[in-house]
């Protein structure tokens, strides 16, 4: 039986299993802490620093996503110090890269009163299209390391990309910055699945967005099981105008934890090439009765 740790978060006492993080503690008492580089399925790297919280007795703020709860800790998630740090992280990121595709960032900007404009505007995006399956736009990259982790030991074990360079020249790169088809990339797209800012995007989605025809309000998703092999990965097919435009897998699925292979994620175009009047096996079966 694991032991529990009792601490206080924003005045609420909470008991959690030993080894829990401050983020888990905050969630347990219903306190929202924003995160960007954190994901349940990946090892915390605590680099974006938007999840910082104040711990009594600590000289600096601490990252909630990775800091392990200790008995008797007194944690404040909304103090002026915390809010100032978060506002500045948002301003620094918002003035460096384009964040319009990061779902929650706009509301956080409002909540924390961030004005990234006073630091300048991010340079124009430079999407890099070197293959038919996905697009990299590092003008949207916040260097959260998630894609690197998903490509490496946290999911795929392919190691096609890493953070290269140093300081403000740090960037995601293949070896010698070669194009993806020349690299070790196996096009599983698990990096796309974890990217929080749309810097990595399926080419199908990117093409529609470029053409101004990406319309989330008209899309619906169908959950199904991948038909390629017997593993049983769950797929979420994103359908717009009767065509699949993107494939994902649920993060909380036991088998995939959000990950797929090239076939599951990108091998759906045959659905669009079926002849008129095509009957599925089930249709055939049903037609006998």
């Amino acid at each position: 039986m694991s032991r529990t740790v009792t601490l206080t978060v924003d005045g609420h006492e909470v008991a959690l299993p030993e080894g829990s993080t401050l983020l888990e503690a905050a969630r347990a008492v219903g306190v929202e802490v924003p995160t960007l580089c954190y994901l349940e399925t990946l090892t915390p790297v605590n680099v974006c620093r938007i999840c910082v919280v104040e711990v009594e007795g600590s000289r600096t703020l601490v990252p909630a996503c990775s800091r392990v709860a200790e008995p008797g800790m007194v944690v404040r998630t909304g103090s002026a110090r915390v809010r100032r740090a978060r506002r500045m992280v948002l301003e620094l990121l918002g003035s460096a890269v384009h964040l319009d595709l990061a779902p929650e960032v706009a509301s956080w900007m409002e909540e924390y009163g961030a004005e990234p404009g006073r630091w300048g505007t991010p340079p124009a995006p430079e999407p890099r299209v070197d293959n038919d399956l996905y697009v990299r736009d590092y003008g949207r990259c916040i260097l959260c390391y998630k894609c690197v982790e998903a490509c490496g030991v946290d999911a795929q074990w392919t190691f096609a990309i890493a953070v290269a360079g140093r300081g403000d020249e740090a960037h995601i790169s293949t070896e010698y910055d070669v194009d993806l088809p020349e690299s070790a990339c196996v096009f599983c797209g698990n990096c796309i699945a974890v990217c929080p800012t749309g810097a990595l995007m399926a080419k199908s989605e990117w093409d529609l967005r470029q053409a101004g025809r990406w319309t989330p309000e008209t899309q619906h998703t169908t959950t199904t099981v991948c038909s390629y092999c017997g593993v049983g990965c769950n797929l979420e097919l994103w359908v717009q105008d009767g065509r699949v435009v993107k494939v994902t897998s649920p993060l909380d699925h036991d088998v995939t934890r959000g990950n797929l292979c090239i076939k599951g994620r990108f091998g759906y175009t045959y659905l669009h090439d079926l002849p008129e009047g095509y009957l599925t096996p089930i249709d055939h079966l049903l037609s006998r009765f």
Partner: protein
Amino acid sequence: MDIRFMEVKATEAERAALDPVVEAPSTSPRLVVGGRTARSRRHLLLPALWALQTGVGWVSRGGLDEICRRLEIPPAEAYAVASFYDLISLEERPERTVRICDDVVCRMAGAEDRLADLAARLGPEGEAWERSSCLGRCDRRSAAFVQEVGSAGRSVAPFDPAWLDRPPEPTPVVAAGPLTERIGHADPTDLDAYRAAGGYRALRAAVAMGPDAVIREVKDSGLVGRGGAAFPTGVKWEAVAGSPRRPHYLICNADESEPGTFKDRVLIEGDPYALVEAMTIAGYATGCERGYVYVRGEYPEALAALGHAVDTCRRRGLLGDDVMGAGFAFDIEIRRGAGAYICGEETALIASIEGHRGEPRAKPPFPTTHGLFGKPTVVNNVETLMNVLRIVDEGGLSYAEHGEGRSRGTKLFAVSGAVAEPGVVEVPFGATIGDVISAAGGPSEPLAAVLVGGAAGSFVGPDDLDVPLTFEGMASVGGALGSGAVVAVGRSSDVEDLVRRIARFFREESCGQCVPCREGTRRQEEALAAGRFDLLDDLAAVMGDASICGLGQTASSAVRSGIALGLLGGES
């Protein structure tokens, strides 16, 4: 693990350069070496990169791929590590390149004028020469580091384009004390001279009293770390010594890169056996059988001196499986940094030794529990370790009689800038800023300020020369002792220009991992250039509060202290 390598062949010269560091994989079809065995040698990545850099002058695709095959490292990861370091080149470049210091102290002595002159003589910047942050030769007021194919490189100080083949002038110890008394008097290459001057007395005493007693003496002495954080050394040692997890590791942090700091270099170059002996005592006391010294890449002379001392000690039975016949094992491995200030941060240093990018890790867990290769690790600065000799020799309580509070024993300062005799000053704790400047010959012109602690330190005004250079004294004026750099800034100097150089230093040296530091240091430099001092407070707050490590946390302190002293113009 199924690694996809590049399809580029290494040249014969590249393979030959790598052979002494990482042997080529066996070609026998009966013997397969790989997998875990190869991957457990990831820590050889940086030495292998250095082998190519010194052997053939750069790291080509073929060369990197050969390293990757021998160590089973994915090429993207090896590239990521190589691109982290300034001294490793991923592009072919001239056989000889010169890195010239344009940092704070050399700047005050006219570095910019010299560089303009140089561009006319050596050709355009970026090809045959480039700018460098502080090279730790501030006492000569100008310095360069020459990298050349086939050699470990060499320092030039003072620097003149015509003097590239001259050995650097030695840095004087202008006020000696117990740690520095042998420097310049005993031959640093001669083990017998070291022993005749009292060397290895402390190790014999340590072995006679046993590991627990050594730790007790170190605790009694009140010795705290000299690298900047001032953590009690004995407490650190005790934590590692008592850990049931094995092996334990010892790391000596000799990656001295703080602008204005050169005292560790002087200690290593002038008294290398003392460091070997001190590390041996530390290893003995804390149960480490292996110690690493991580020497700054731009310190080839220190690297050579220490390498010679380690080899000699190993040959003479003072390192190895049975040190001095006393029944304990200890050996030292020297690792060379490759041009990254951040690797002086202890967790970044650990990552660098392990063959990863020198990115600091979150603390806790601390190195004493999760250090090198995940094991309990003692990380001590050169000067800290050197103090142990005296503590063991004369007893911790006697040592503690010098100084007060947390500041016990003697302290080394690297004094440079507007002083008559720049050099290393060793004084008992309690000496004031003014005392230390006087020991270095006094000001050479009326002072505008003194930069204490280097780029990560702070400016102190001329009215505060009576502040004691102790941890407490510096804290009382809102500063920190830091690395022991004391840079006297004369009134003829352009302080604003120095502050802008410090801001550039942090932008260039940030590892780039966390947002507050990567983006904050960049915006700080821009705000200073634009005279927008009103923006600095918010930057200082986020960098100081939310950065992962000390680099970001201190990146605004010198800038802010300069503004607080009214040394800068601009809108505020």
